[in-house]
């Protein structure tokens, strides 16, 4: 075998390495802005709650950036993840809601909005919206409904769901308190609106204690047939 003279040119001396081919710079269009969203459905009400902290890395960009977006008189969308995609997604949804209203002369129902959001998210299957969505509202019969999504549009109807940075902390707590999981000999009392609101507040206070991306304030939207009532409660600012 003929061995290249280059390799045996100067033994002991480091050879300069010049790479002359194309270089791939990683295209990284996403950022993680934190935030937690929660939704609970009752017999005749629904609650959508989110914290209001907007962070990135070690910084907090804003302490007043709620993640609940009112879509109709009976539906609220909570989205957390990458704030840029949240804004674009809500803009598209609001435009589609108006188009539906103009074509069909009626407001979209919660179930219809959920099905539509699934296809909007899936249209970006190969370049996803980095958003964790939860829709809370009233269905056509006036009962509470919660729909939870993954970033590419898989969804289902739930009774309660937590999403976002503290979701893994909150979901087990909700499973226990609302779903009565892992408890024996407990009477399954249906959840009243006031108890649900108090539970949501308590649960977010716990989340703010242990999750760095959750805190500052809590925005709670309570949806009943009378309309949507919003409250803001302070949380830990550290």
């Amino acid at each position: 075998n003929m061995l290249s003279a280059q390799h045996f040119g100067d033994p002991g001396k480091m050879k300069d390495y010049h790479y002359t081919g194309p270089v791939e710079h990683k295209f990284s269009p996403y950022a993680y802005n934190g935030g937690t969203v929660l939704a609970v459905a009752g017999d005749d009400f629904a609650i959508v709650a989110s914290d209001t902290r907007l962070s990135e890395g070690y910084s907090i960009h804003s302490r007043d950036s709620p993640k609940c977006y009112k879509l109709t008189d009976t539906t609220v969308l909570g989205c957390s993840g990458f704030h840029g995609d949240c804004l674009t997604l809500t803009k598209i949804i609001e435009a589609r809601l108006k188009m539906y209203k103009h074509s069909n002369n009626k407001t979209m129902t919660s179930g219809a909005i959920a099905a539509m959001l699934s296809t909007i998210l899936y249209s970006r299957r190969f370049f996803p919206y980095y958003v964790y969505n939860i829709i809370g509202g009233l269905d056509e019969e006036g009962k509470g409904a919660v729909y939870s999504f993954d970033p590419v549009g898989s969804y289902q109807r739930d009774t309660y769901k937590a999403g976002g940075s503290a979701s893994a902390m909150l979901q087990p707590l909700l499973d226990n308190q609302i779903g009565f999981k892992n408890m024996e000999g407990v009477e399954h009392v249906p959840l009243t609106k006031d108890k649900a609101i108090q539970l949501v507040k308590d649960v977010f206070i716990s989340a703010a204690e242990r999750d760095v991306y959750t805190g500052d304030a809590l925005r709670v939207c309570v949806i009943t047939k009378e309309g949507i009532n919003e409250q803001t409660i302070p949380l830990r600012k550290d």
Partner: protein
Amino acid sequence: MALFDVSGFNSDLRARILPSTQVPVLDRANNYNFGSKFQEFAVPPGVDPSGFLESCSSDGGVRIEMDHGTTTLAFKFRHGVIVAVDSRASSGRYISSTYYDKVIEINPYLLGTMSGSAADCMYWERLLAKECRLYRLRNNQRISVAAASKLLCNMMLGYRGMGLSVGSMICGWDKEGPGLYYVDENGTRLSGRMFSTGSGNSYAYGVMDSGYREDLTVEEAYDLGCRAIAHATHRDAYSGGVVNMYHMQKDGWIKVCKQDVSELLHRYRKEKLRV
């Protein structure tokens, strides 16, 4: 497009495989012409879509997790087809749902199961349901199971290599009798008597194969389906929740049961101790 050529996309080949009515992928999806017949998908510009999400999550970047994981099974026997699925949806290591519905009721005589990526299965099987309905309206007769599974298979082939993850079984009863087809994201389409898909499929096969006979009674078949899923959830970390079971009969499917796997496994253990 110049960008397509530079990025090495084999757009030529794709145009030859795709039927002419399907629009190829663009860099931005059009959200506002929702009366259109063609679905458009956005792709990240200049990068290979199937590797794009992985490259985002490396080096401390963001992790976008999609819902995954399952055990599903279906088998034909004398009295029809039994379809049994678990109900766990996991995204990464987090269980995002314990009661996820993995059977799509396409119409009263066709069922589709979901395994792999939840969003992919849900979207394409919903699209399949739409096509089946259109077929019924245009041809005044129900679509056959073979044709329905072929439609899904061709949808998968149109996006082959782009990172979809679908492992689905199409079950139904048509003029040829009970039908069971397995379709996956590579375009594999197989007709058979017994299939199991998902991360827990090998465990389910073991239990199903040891208990299967063509002349099972209906009760025995229900029991076999439950046992196979329950034992698979016991050993597979990504399966769990409840067993959702359907029975496909001549005049349509019926939903048989929705049983918690922990209770089933507890019952099986007690039976073993009694014997």
